[in-house]
């Protein structure tokens, strides 16, 4: 590749440049905190990426469980998507993806915010979201059962409400 400037140019620019404050793309703090460079993407992380969350979700046992849970919690609290996004201070487009896309793996911060809004343990929600892979047969069982009993309706039916409450009881009992 040919550079279109030379040494003389760089000397001139040094005189003009007030600060040389040129950071872009990612803070050094984040790079440093995340571990080795180049970033090592483990097989689990690759499988759990937004385009291929199947393996991670299978670790808990039900693809789409997160979306359904968030959807029911939102409707339980009588919040529209916009209201929920605003209250949780998360991106509306991402909230829509969580509810609509079975294999979507959300940002960690979004899970933290949603856990806060709906008063669900962050740790458990992270596992269901595929952000944490952990052997948890009881949670897997509960997730499967919840996924089987919940359906997409505009109003929370008694069946949905019972399934939701039962699942929430499991999640809150299993706080670390």
């Amino acid at each position: 590749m040919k550079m279109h400037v030379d040494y003389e140019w760089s000397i001139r620019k040094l005189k003009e440049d007030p600060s040389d404050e040129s950071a872009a793309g990612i803070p050094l703090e984040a790079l440093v905190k995340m571990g080795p460079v180049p970033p090592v993407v483990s097989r689990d992380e690759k499988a759990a990426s937004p385009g291929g969350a199947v393996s991670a979700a299978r670790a808990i046992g039900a693809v789409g469980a997160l979306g359904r849970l968030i959807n029911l919690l939102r409707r339980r609290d009588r919040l529209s998507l916009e209201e929920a996004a605003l209250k949780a201070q998360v991106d509306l487009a991402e909230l829509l993806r969580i509810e609509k896309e079975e294999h979507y793996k959300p940002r960690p911060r979004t899970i933290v915010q949603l856990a806060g809004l709906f008063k669900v343990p962050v740790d458990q929600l992270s596992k269901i979201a595929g952000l944490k892979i952990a052997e948890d047969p009881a949670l897997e069982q509960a997730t499967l059962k919840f996924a089987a009993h919940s359906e997409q309706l505009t109003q929370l039916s008694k069946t949905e409400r019972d399934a939701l409450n039962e699942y929430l009881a499991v999640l809150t009992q299993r706080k670390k």
Partner: protein
Amino acid sequence: MRELLGHFALLNRASGKEERAELYSQIDAKNLSDFTRYWRPMVAERLSQLPRGATPADANLQDWHWDWAQKAEVFTGRLAYRSFALEHADRTQGLMVCSLVRRVREKSRLNQHLVYIEFVQTAPWNNRHYTTTPVYKGVGNTMVAAAISLSLEEEFEGRIGLHSLPQSEAWYREYCQMTDLGVDDQYQGLRYFEMTSEQAARFLK
């Protein structure tokens, strides 16, 4: 394959004199080793000195990891990415990774090709965020010029784009004279800037 692209001046702030740095076309093992051995400890040291609450929350840092995991490919030699390293005094002074497959967002040239700077950083010892006595000035100029040169070589007419970190917004907007396209909610709330071919030509003058 890595090549020496040229020599460019860095200003030694202590002596007030220019020194010759080497710009290379690819980040290599030595640059990564320098990052681990010399960059990381300074950043970690600074992080540990800051009062609680002053650093980004762990969840926010995990968000970066989420984003960056998508970019891990930038280090695996894909054709879509080019990296650059600026070296001097046997240390890596600056690092940059660029993508060749992003498109212009600015309306006048919407969807045309540009070089997108995935990441550019000067070494922490050159950076006021990590030291009260920054050593060298001039890394940013050379890196932006490298991105524009890459854009010209790829026939993208010098167009470049990037998401600025907050402390650098004024530099990109006022000194580099880039177009501010506003905060990008899809990318950590960073502000997105683009340089048109005309702006690029002025920068290279």
